[in-house]
C-alpha cells in the first residue's frame, strides 16, 4: 500500500507538471483578455525543439531554453495576429495548432529521419532533495523529482503573488477586465497583451520540453495529445488563478495517474471515465462559478482604441 501510494503520487506530480507549467503561462494571457488555445501547438513545438536543442548542444538546460525561445517566437506571430491585426483569437490559435502539427513532423523527419529519433539526448534526471527525500512516501514521490516539477510547484504561489500584488500584475488584470479604463490611465493595452503572450509562449515551450525530456526521452509526432487544451481547462477550473491552476493541474494529473494504475490492476471501473473526469469537472465548475468567475470581462475581445 505504501509502495502503491508512493508510485501514485510520484507519477501524479510527473504528469501534472507540464499542465501546470503551461497553465501558469496562459493564466496570465487569459487574464489580459486573450484566449490562448494555441498553447497546444506551442507545446508541441517546444517538445520538438527541446529535443533538437538537447541533441545539438548536449545539454538539457540549453535544449529547454531553445524550446522556450521557439515558444516565444511562435507566440510573437500569434500576438501579431491577435493583438496588432485584431484577428479572431480562437481561429488564430487553431491555425497555430494545425501549423505546429505539420511543422513538428516535418522538422522531426528532416532532422532525425523517418525511422524516428533514436538519438541519445540529455534529459531531465531526478534531483532528490537531501534530507527531505528520506521522509516516507513524500520523500520518494515529491522530493525525488526532476527540476521542472519543483519549479512548477514553487512558481505557482509566487506567480499568484505576482499577479495579485505587483504593478505589472495589476495592469494585466485591468487590461482584461476593462481595457478602456486602463487606456485612460496611460497603460498600453497592446504592450501588456504582447508581454503576457510572449511569456505564455515561453512557458508552453518549457512545458513541451518537459513532456519530451522529462516524462520520456524522445520526440514523437503529436505527443502533446491535448495537454494544451487540458491546461486551458485547468485555468478555467482553477478560476484564472495561478494557485488554482496548480490545484487543478494536480487533480487532473491524479486522475490520469490513477487511470494507469486501474488499467494495470484490472479494476472494474473503466479507466476512460477517469480520463473524462477533468473535462467534466471543468464544465461543472463553469456552471457553478457562473457569476463568481474570474474570467475577464473582455476575454476574447480585440481592443480598438478610440
Amino acid at each position: 500500500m505504501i509502495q502503491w501510494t508512493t508510485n501514485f503520487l510520484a507519477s501524479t506530480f510527473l504528469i501534472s507538471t507540464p499542465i501546470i507549467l503551461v497553465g501558469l503561462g496562459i493564466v496570465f494571457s487569459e487574464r489580459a483578455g486573450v484566449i490562448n488555445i494555441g498553447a497546444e501547438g506551442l507545446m508541441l513545438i517546444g517538445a520538438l525543439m527541446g529535443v533538437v536543442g538537447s541533441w545539438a548542444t548536449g545539454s538539457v538546460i540549453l535544449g529547454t531554453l531553445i524550446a522556450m525561445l521557439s515558444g516565444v517566437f511562435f507566440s510573437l506571430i500569434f500576438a501579431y495576429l491577435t493583438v496588432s491585426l485584431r484577428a479572431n483569437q480562437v481561429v488564430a490559435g487553431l491555425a497555430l495548432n494545425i501549423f505546429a502539427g505539420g511543422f513538428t513532423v516535418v522538422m522531426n523527419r528532416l532532422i532525425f529521419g523517418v525511422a524516428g529519433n533514436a538519438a541519445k539526448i540529455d534529459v531531465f534526471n531526478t534531483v532528490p532533495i537531501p534530507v527531505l527525500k528520506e521522509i516516507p512516501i513524500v520523500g520518494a514521490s515529491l522530493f525525488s523529482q526532476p527540476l521542472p516539477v519543483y519549479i512548477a510547484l514553487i512558481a505557482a504561489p509566487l506567480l499568484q503573488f505576482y499577479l495579485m500584488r505587483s504593478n505589472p500584475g495589476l495592469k494585466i488584470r485591468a487590461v482584461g477586465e476593462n481595457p478602456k479604463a486602463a487606456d485612460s490611465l496611460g497603460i498600453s493595452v497592446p504592450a501588456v497583451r504582447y508581454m503576457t503572450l510572449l511569456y505564455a509562449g515561453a512557458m508552453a515551450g518549457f512545458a513541451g520540453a518537459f513532456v519530451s525530456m522529462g516524462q520520456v526521452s524522445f520526440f514523437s509526432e503529436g505527443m502533446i495529445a491535448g495537454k494544451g487544451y487540458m491546461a486551458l481547462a485547468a485555468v478555467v477550473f482553477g478560476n484564472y488563478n495561478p494557485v488554482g491552476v496548480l490545484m487543478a493541474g494536480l487533480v487532473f494529473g491524479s486522475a490520469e495517474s490513477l487511470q494507469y494504475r486501474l488499467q494495470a490492476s484490472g479494476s472494474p471501473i473503466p479507466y476512460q471515465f477517469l480520463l473524462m473526469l477533468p473535462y467534466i469537472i471543468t464544465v461543472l465548475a463553469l456552471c457553478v462559478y457562473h457569476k463568481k468567475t474570474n474570467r475577464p470581462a473582455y476575454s476574447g475581445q480585440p481592443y480598438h482604441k478610440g
Partner: protein
Amino acid sequence: MTRGAIYPAIAVIAALAVCAVILLVMGLDPVLAYQKLFQGAFGSKNAISETLTHAIPLLLCALSFAVGVQGGLINLGATGQLYIGALAGGAVGIYLHLPPILHIPLILVVGFIAGGAYGLLIAFLKNRFGVSELISTIMMNYVAIYLLNYLVTGPMKDTSSANNLPQSALIATTAKLSIILPGTRLHAGLYLAIAALLFYYLFFYKTPLGYQIRVGGLNPDAAHYAGFSIEKNNYVTMFLAGGFAGLAGCVQIMSVQSRLIHAFAKELGFSGVAVALLGNNTPLGIAISSILFAGLDGGAAKMQTLAKVPNAVVYMLQGIILMFVVGQEMFNLFHRRQRRAGIKKEAAT
C-alpha cells in the same frame, strides 16, 4: 461578395509562397513538391475520387462550424459531436439488420439526432448557466473521445477476430454506402454531402427560421428588437451543428471505416473549422475549400513518395492559410498604407 471571394484566394497564394520559403530553408524543393502535391490531388481519376472521398466528411464538419457562426456561436465541438453521432449510428449499423433502403436512412437519422443532442447540451449550458460554448465544446470533445474509446475497447469491442485492436465489429453490409465510381472508394456519401450543403443554403437563406438565426448571429440586439428568441436560436443552431457533425461520423463508418475505431476522425473536426473559415461560411466557398483541403490531404502521399517532402507539410500549409485568412486585416493595412501613400503623392504634385 467580390471581397469575400478575393481574400481567401489571396490567403491561399500567400500561404503557398510562405510555405515555399520555409521548404527552401529546410533544403527541400517547393516547386517539385507543389507539382507532385497537385498531381496527387487532382492528377488522375483515382486522385480526384480520393480527394472527393476525403472532402465528404470535411464538408460536413465545415457545415457544423458554419451553422454555429450563422447563429453567432463558435462551435469547436464538431469532433465530439462527430463521435457521438458515429457511436449512435454505428450501433444501429452493427446490431440491426434491415434492408438497405431502411437501414441506411435510419443510421443517418439516428446519427444526426445523436450529434444534435450532444450539441443541444452545449446550448443548454449556455442558455441556463451562461457557459461559454467555446470552452464547453472543447471539453465535451474529450468526453466523447474517451466514451468512444471505452466502448470500442469494452462493450462494443470486436470479439470475432484474434487481434486486440480498439475497434468494434464491422457494420452490417446492408448499412454500407455504395460505391458510385467503380474501381475507386468514392461512395454515395457524396450525395449526402451535396444534400447537406443544399439544406444549409435553403435553411439559412430561404426559410424564416434560418433568417431569424442569421439576424441573431449578426446582431443580437436587432433580433431582440424584432422579437426573436436568442435562446431558441441557440438550441436550433447547436442541434443542426451537432447533427451535421454526427452525419460526418456516420458517413465515415458507413464507408471507408466500416467500423468504429478509436479516434478514427483525428483532426477532422478542426480541419472543418479551417475549411468553413476559408470558404467564408458560404455554401459555394465551403464546397470549394473542402475540396482544396481534401486535395492537400490526398496529394500529400504522392508528394512524400515522389518529391521526398514529408506529407505533414500540408498541415503547415493549412495552418498558414488559416493564419492569412484570419489575419486579413493585414491586407487591409497594406491596402490603406498604399492608398495613403497615393494620396500623399497626389497632394505633393
